[in-house]
């Protein structure tokens, strides 16, 4: 009998094209997703006189450079206009499925892939974007690659890889009300650090993970890269299968049965060994908020801004000082109550229907005290939200209801904060300058972002919603 294998190991082995004696593997890529930043890679492919090897395995949508106040490609910046036009031209020329601006299916690639049923269990999936780890929520091995590797995949449908190590994060126990995938992943990163999973593929397991919806799992896997992980994944189960059933690119009829038979073999086998194991107690996770300039700088909303004097070494102390200076925060200040200037609800981390519902539940019947944006992750999410009346709730509460795209997560389309602004953001990176030069980003869940919007400061959403704090 062979030793029990992890899900990652099984997917990896299934996709080996060539194993070189020097430890390098030529890995087959089942799915390749592209966005409006992929055109330099395509240009290099054409410069070699080549075409996409498997246009049928690729799909694309513009997200980074699209405006969120209108749907035209006629944006003022000539570089951005070129990128938005290139994606259409390239996809048409190459025969790649495109969800273009104006198509209700357009959105952030990591929202669109799962939503269209392109991301499936047991597949290898890549995209020239680090948050490709998102798609691991469906039990795929999904990871971000650089632009040269994108060209390589276009040309060969393969990638040279050294096999990463494996790591299991087990979160057992019951989550308190209003604790989301976002709080779980921030708690994990706070525990293991921004480099905690470098070189590893992370599998999230345990009863708290099993209990998460697909949206929650997508949020969780999305930020694997923020822990340094090569990929993040959750074993496919009934939640996964129900989610995929009926999605446009999911298998149908007899193929569905065949796929199901395979999907059920994907999860990690009992007794399989991981290179590293980490455990968290779900009951200990509170609504999280970041205080610094790395996603590892996260703590509970009931916590206080940490003191650099408490840092374990001089290097860390210096980093903390720098972070606090940039964030304009004083050690010891309670997080609950820190004034916020602006709110962003969106990004590939938190722009799915469940995220918008959670934010709307807080916004309902209240008024935003500061500018607050809601940017749905795709046209379909936006449509669904409007069908449920969420847009009305947001508008009545004074929130701005915008068109789908990456928007203020990265700000390359012009959606940025201004120097010195403090933003409560549902995105994934609180890096220096990420949302604009000198802008201070705090990462939170959608409910916590909405709570900041209606109070004008960070506030424990559980207090607002009158829930028992358990």
């Amino acid at each position, binding site marked *: 009998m062979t030793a029990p294998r992890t899900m990652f190991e099984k997917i990896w082995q299934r996709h080996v094209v060539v194993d070189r004696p020097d430890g390098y593997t030529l890995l087959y890529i089942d799915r390749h997703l592209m966005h409006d930043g992929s055109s330099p890679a395509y240009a290099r492919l054409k410069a070699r006189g080549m075409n996409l090897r498997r246009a049928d*395995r690729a799909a694309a949508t513009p997200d980074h450079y699209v405006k969120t106040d209108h749907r035209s490609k006629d944006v003022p910046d000539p570089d951005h206009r070129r990128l938005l036009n290139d994606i259409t031209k390239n996809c048409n020329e190459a025969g790649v499925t495109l969800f273009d601006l104006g198509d209700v299916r357009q959105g952030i690639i990591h929202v669109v892939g799962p939503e269209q049923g392109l991301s499936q269990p047991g597949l290898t999936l890549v995209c020239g974007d680090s948050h490709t780890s998102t798609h691991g929520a469906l039990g795929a091995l999904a990871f*971000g690659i*650089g*632009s040269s590797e994108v*060209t390589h995949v276009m040309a*060969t449908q393969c990638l040279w890889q050294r096999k990463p190590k494996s790591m299991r994060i087990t979160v057992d126990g019951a989550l308190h009300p209003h604790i989301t995938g976002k709080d779980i992943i921030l708690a994990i990163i706070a525990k293991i650090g921004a*480099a905690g999973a*470098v070189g590893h593929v992370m599998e999230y397991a345990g009863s708290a993970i099993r209990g998460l919806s697909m949206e929650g799992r997508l949020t969780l896997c999305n930020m694997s890269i923020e822990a340094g992980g090569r990929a993040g994944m959750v074993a496919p189960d009934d939640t996964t299968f129900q989610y995929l059933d009926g999605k446009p690119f999911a298998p149908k009829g007899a193929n569905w049965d065949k796929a199901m038979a395979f999907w059920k073999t994907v999860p990690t086998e009992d007794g399989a060994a991981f290179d590293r194991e980490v455990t968290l107690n779900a009951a200990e996770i509170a609504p999280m908020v970041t205080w610094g300039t790395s996603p590892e700088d996260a703590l509970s909303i009931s916590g206080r801004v940490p003191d650099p004097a408490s840092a374990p070494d001089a290097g860390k102390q210096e980093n903390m000082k720098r972070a606090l200076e940039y964030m304009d925060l004083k050690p010891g200040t309670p997080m609950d109550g820190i004034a916020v200037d602006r709110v962003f609800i969106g990004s590939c981390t938190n722009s799915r229907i469940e995220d918008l519902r959670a934010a709307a539940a807080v916004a309902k019947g209240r008024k935003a005290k500061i500018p607050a944006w809601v940017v749905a992750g795709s046209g379909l999410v936006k449509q669904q939200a409007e069908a449920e009346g969420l847009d009305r709730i947001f508008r009545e509460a004074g929130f701005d209801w915008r068109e789908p795209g990456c928007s203020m997560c990265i700000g390359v389309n012009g959606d940025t904060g201004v120097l010195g602004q403090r933003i409560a953001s549902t995105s994934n*990176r609180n890096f*220096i300058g990420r949302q604009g030069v000198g802008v201070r980003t705090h990462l939170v869940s959608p409910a916590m972002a909405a709570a900041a919007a209606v109070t004008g400061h960070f506030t424990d959403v559980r207090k607002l919603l009158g829930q028992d704090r358990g």
Partner: protein
Amino acid sequence: MDAFTTLKAVAVPIDQANVDTDQIIPARFLGRTRDRQVEGFFHDLRLDPNGRPREGVTLNNPAYKGAKIMVGNTNFACGSSRENAVTTMVDNGFRSFIAPSFGDIFFNNCFQNGCLPIRLPAERVARIRVILHELPGAEIAIDLAKQTVTGPDGKTDSFEVDPFRKEMLLKGADEVKITLGYESDIKRFEDKQKQEMPWL
């Protein structure tokens, strides 16, 4: 791709841990053509919001002019997959990076651009950074074939590099061309997958 064999050059230290690729090149420079991304290089770290050089920033110290090696800290170049982080380094003269650990994607992207990322023990890297601060303009010598780094103190360390990546760098090889040499294996895989996973 340019080959990488040996390199003896000025090295510049970057002390912070978790330097992300958004610092190396802020996102607003990404949409530009490569020739206009050059100035994005550590832009907001080097310059204040008014475009004036910030004081006390190592990268602004003329003593490090002509540096081709950067010595970083833990989790160097983590975050976004933007390959522009490597290309803007290359376009600003850099060819090798030494750190205790790297963001995985940046690490891979280096090899695609003729650059050598080197992992050395954290203590040694910290020591090298201290020396580079004390002796601005000091040089480091790297020999890829021998897999050695000689610090400004004359001490030589050996480093690990994947044999596949080493060979590619030494030859300046074209990865796509190498892969195309495996066409029959790829074809065989695709035929088998067509049988096994007809829904794809």
